[in-house]
């Protein structure tokens, strides 16, 4: 079974610490990530129109290239890449006419798209392939006394056909937190939209969403949030600036990618460069818990 890694745009820039820490984690777990060649934009958001195949082309081109490079599975870290690639694949494969038409665009590719490469999120690899029991054996610095809220957002659990866990009551990320020695805290707003790309046109909405989501986590006892989506991370972390200005009673909370905390628990050193990519400084909390 050959695994390929699909990074996507933001993993190379604003979410570089997500990629770095995931690489470290998979190295320690004995399954190093191998980046596929010649990847392009995943499509970012799945187009739900039934009649416009142009909007599916970049997703399908990536999947075709992964197929041609011999990967059985394509692993993504970003929730949006996972969702977009997987839905595009289902949409095209479920209709022979779509499959024929989309292949008409693939002139310069080596072969035709057949849909043989599966799209899998890293969390599923950790749970189903490596297993949490195995991960637990490699934990050298458990996240003792750290209460963490897992923010799933939308795209790991909806649409329900491709949810990585139960679409209304997932536990995979909380189980992961427990595995690395922390306390996974369930909070009410963990599956609610952060406002996504409204962060550009309707900033007020994302500011209010951030306020509500982080307050909900705080009231449930969380000290930090984890996520796997760079857009959620941007809204929930960077938008705390505006949230603090808008809501005087608001108190801030660090937001991590789940792999950052995994890397620490697996004995990896905290990379000082990562701090620059956080808006809310996570260092005081990590120091308080004796993790760095």
């Amino acid at each position, binding site marked *: 079974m050959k695994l390929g890694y699909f990074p*996507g*745009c*933001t993993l190379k*820039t*604003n*979410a570089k610490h997500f990629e770095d820490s995931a690489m470290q984690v998979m190295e320690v777990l004995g399954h190093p990530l191998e980046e596929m060649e010649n990847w392009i*934009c995943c*499509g*970012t*958001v799945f*187009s*739900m*129109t*039934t*009649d*416009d195949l142009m*909007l599916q082309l970049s997703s399908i081109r990536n999947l075709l290239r992964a197929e041609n490079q011999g990967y059985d599975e394509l692993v993504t870290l*970003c929730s*949006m890449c996972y969702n977009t690639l997987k839905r595009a694949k289902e949409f095209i494969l479920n209709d022979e006419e779509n499959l024929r038409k989309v292949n008409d665009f693939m002139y310069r590719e080596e072969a035709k798209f057949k849909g043989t490469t599966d799209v899998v999120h890293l969390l599923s690899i950790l749970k189903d392939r490596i297993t949490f029991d195995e991960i637990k054996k490699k934990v050298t610095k458990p996240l003792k006394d750290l209460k963490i809220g897992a923010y799933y957002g*939308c795209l790991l659990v*909806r*649409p*329900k056909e491709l949810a990585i866990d139960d*679409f*209304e009551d997932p536990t995979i990320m909380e189980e992961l937190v427990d595995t690395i020695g922390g306390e996974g805290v369930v909070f009410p707003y963990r*599956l*609610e*939209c952060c*406002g*996504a*790309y*409204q*962060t*550009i*046109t*309707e900033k007020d*909405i994302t500011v209010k*969403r951030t306020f509500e989501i982080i307050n909900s986590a705080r009231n449930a006892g969380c000290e930090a949030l984890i996520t796997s989506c*760079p*857009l959620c991370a*941007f809204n929930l972390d*960077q938008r705390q600036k505006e949230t603090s200005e808008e809501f005087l009673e608001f108190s801030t909370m660090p937001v991590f990618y789940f792999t950052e905390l995994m890397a620490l628990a697996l004995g990896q050193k905290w990379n000082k460069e990562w701090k620059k990519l956080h808006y809310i400084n996570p260092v005081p909390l990590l120091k308080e818990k004796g993790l760095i």
Partner: protein
Amino acid sequence: MSLKITRERIKNSLVDKIEDISGQNVFDCYQCGICSSGCPVTDYMDYSPNQVIRLIQLGCVDEILNSRTIWICSTCLQCSARCPKGIEVAKVMEALRTINLRQREGTLKPEDIKSKDLKDLPQIALVSAFRKLTG
């Protein structure tokens, strides 16, 4: 809100177009309202998601095509996941945006984004907004 419902209005070709682009049958909706109760951004909408479906059933497509609601929807898919009749409401919203976008009527003009914001915003935010909101 009062509406004059006529046979011509209900037999509107735009309703067919919405059903065609979305692949959804809006006439399956029996107005339980679960889509609106789960939607996290109804506060910002002029019509709630169940009202959007009802107005399409009544052929009042112009009201909806010009509404704020369709641009506020961020396709989080909560409505689609919960609809007891299996209507993917988010796909209907996408069809409504699409009809506007195909006439070059979007809500985001790339040149309006401030250069400071451009520096701060990750690609994932920019590209997704362009795909959903730019005609």
